């Protein structure tokens, strides 16, 4: 298991190198002189040379990349062009709110998606199954930011049950955090819950139609026992997979949701940096978020190896 994990971890390195290259190249996608694009047409020559120096634009390309990569590996993405702070400092300050939002969304996805999928999948073709499938299809189609608008307008503007904006760290005040996270978590997690429900349903309905399950049922084994012993055991891998895949989706819709609910996370940092053309910060965010996604994919893959020992020996 340890060798397997180590092998998989090493396999990530070429991917990370490619992603870093992509983030690095961003600076060179700017039309014309990057320094002028960033600082604006009216910038003083001193400011322009300052930016050139900061981005290392005055050095040969290959040298620039390896210097940037060398620093990035140590978590140093340079200084922000807008705020007088290190990019790594800005990002680590924003990591907490984003992680807590993603976890809250994931909780919504699992708590709604898995039971809904189980209920629908154990009796495929029934009215309950069709109902769940229809709602899940709708849940995937509704944009998270429209759902958020509806939630805010109903539960924060019309009825003042939940606050519309604001963030409190769960370590400072867990109750206030939960209270403020209800609406954003539903908005961000609804589509994931729908996806999880669909995948759980199809995994469960495949299993209940297997011969040994039908035999057990005909022998009088209780439904509850069948669910725990056969169905969940066999459906676990697809459910874990789809839950793991939600991380990327949650991080992406988190960008808009953080902005709408005033959550000071990576997403709102990304929006601000894009507006200000703060390229070092954007590069840092791209690499950090990609690393996040790669690591969760790895955890999902490793959990296969735990759930199914055959995987380890392939």
């Amino acid at each position, binding site marked *: 298991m340890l060798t397997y994990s180590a092998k998989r971890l090493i396999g990530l390195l070429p991917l990370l190198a490619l992603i870093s290259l992509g983030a690095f190249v961003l600076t060179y996608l700017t039309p014309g002189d990057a320094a002028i694009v960033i600082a604006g047409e009216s910038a003083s020559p001193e400011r322009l040379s300052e930016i050139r120096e900061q981005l290392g634009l005055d050095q040969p390309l290959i040298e620039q990349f390896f210097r940037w990569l060398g620093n990035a590996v140590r978590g140093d993405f340079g200084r922000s062009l807008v705020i007088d702070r290190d990019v790594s400092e800005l990002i680590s300050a924003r990591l907490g709110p984003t992680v807590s939002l993603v976890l809250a969304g994931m909780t919504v996805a699992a708590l709604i998606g898995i039971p809904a999928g189980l209920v629908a999948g154990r009796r495929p073709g029934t009215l309950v199954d069709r109902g769940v499938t229809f709602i899940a299809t709708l849940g995937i189609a509704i944009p998270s930011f429209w759902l958020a608008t509806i939630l805010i307008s109903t539960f924060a503007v019309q009825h003042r049950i939940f606050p519309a904006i604001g963030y409190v760290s769960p370590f400072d005040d867990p109750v206030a955090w939960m209270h403020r996270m209800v609406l954003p978590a539903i908005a961000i997690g609804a589509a994931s819950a729908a996806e999880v429900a669909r995948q759980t349903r199809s995994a469960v309905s495949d299993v209940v139609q297997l011969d040994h399950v039908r035999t057990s049922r005909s022998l009088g084994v209780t439904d509850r026992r069948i669910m725990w012993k056969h169905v969940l055991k066999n459906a676990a891998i697809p459910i874990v997979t789809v839950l793991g895949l939600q991380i990327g989706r949650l*991080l992406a819709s988190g960008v808009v949701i953080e902005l709408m609910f005033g959550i000071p996370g990576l997403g709102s940092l990304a929006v601000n940096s894009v507006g200000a053309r703060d390229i070092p910060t954007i590069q840092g965010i791209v690499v950090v978020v990609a690393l996040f996604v790669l690591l969760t994919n790895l955890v999902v893959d490793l959990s296969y190896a735990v759930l199914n020992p055959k995987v380890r020996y392939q």
Partner: protein
Amino acid sequence: MTRTIAVGPTRTPGPIKRFARRFARQPIAMFAVGLLVVLTLMAVLAPLIATHDPALQNLRARNQGPSSGHWFGTDDIGRDLFSRMVYGARTTLLAPVIAVTVGMVLGVPTGLLAGFKRGPIDAVLGRVADALLALPGLIVAMAIVAVRGPSMVNAMMAVGLNFAPRFFRVVRGTALAIREETFIDASRIAGASDTRLIRSHVLPNIAPPLIVQATIMLGVGVLAEAALSFLGVGVQPPQATWGVLLRRGFDNLSEARYQSIPPGIAITVLILAFQWVGDGLRDSLGREVRRG
């Protein structure tokens, strides 16, 4: 009584024809196709359908509710929301097409190459696709817009870059499966060149799964465009898409709560339509391709 027996060249229909025939038998998918046709007509015929000039401001009629004069009401500077939605359909429908086209242009040839040639080319292209898949599309699109400047085309090209690895995977997978088929060996023995093999055997078999993927990605593209426009990095004013209207509705929430309802429903229906067409197409794939 004479019985006619079909004689002569009864060729079995090709994979694309069989696919189309199965698709036409699906009611939900055909309904969704109808929806898409209606929306496209609305976009094309916008000047005939819109009741007002979508850019005309009327500061004396701000944030009005729905009425016989303004079916969906007016926005915060008194523009007619129904007309803005009708015109907005144009960019809303065009944007995902740009993203999918970019994704296919990048993903299909590379996928064919990787699946058909295998070896080191496949390994390198596969790594690049994996790396692209790990990048969250929305953030990368925002990053590209940040350096290239905000515009709908820039934003959707960036989204297309994110779509490319998905097309790559579908095409590569199908190409891998097909190259093992006996009819490929047969053609090769008969002296067919690689180009000919790809054109007359591989492409027709890749087309159906590719069409399924493209339809699904069109729906994802609608969502991506709406999100980017919502964030203000998509189309620039005075142009509007349904995503832009949603954003304005959100900003006006305290004045006029209903404003985000029509564009919200419209986007959801559009995404649903692409999803239903995609589901119908997938069910039409038939066993011979699905297995591969």
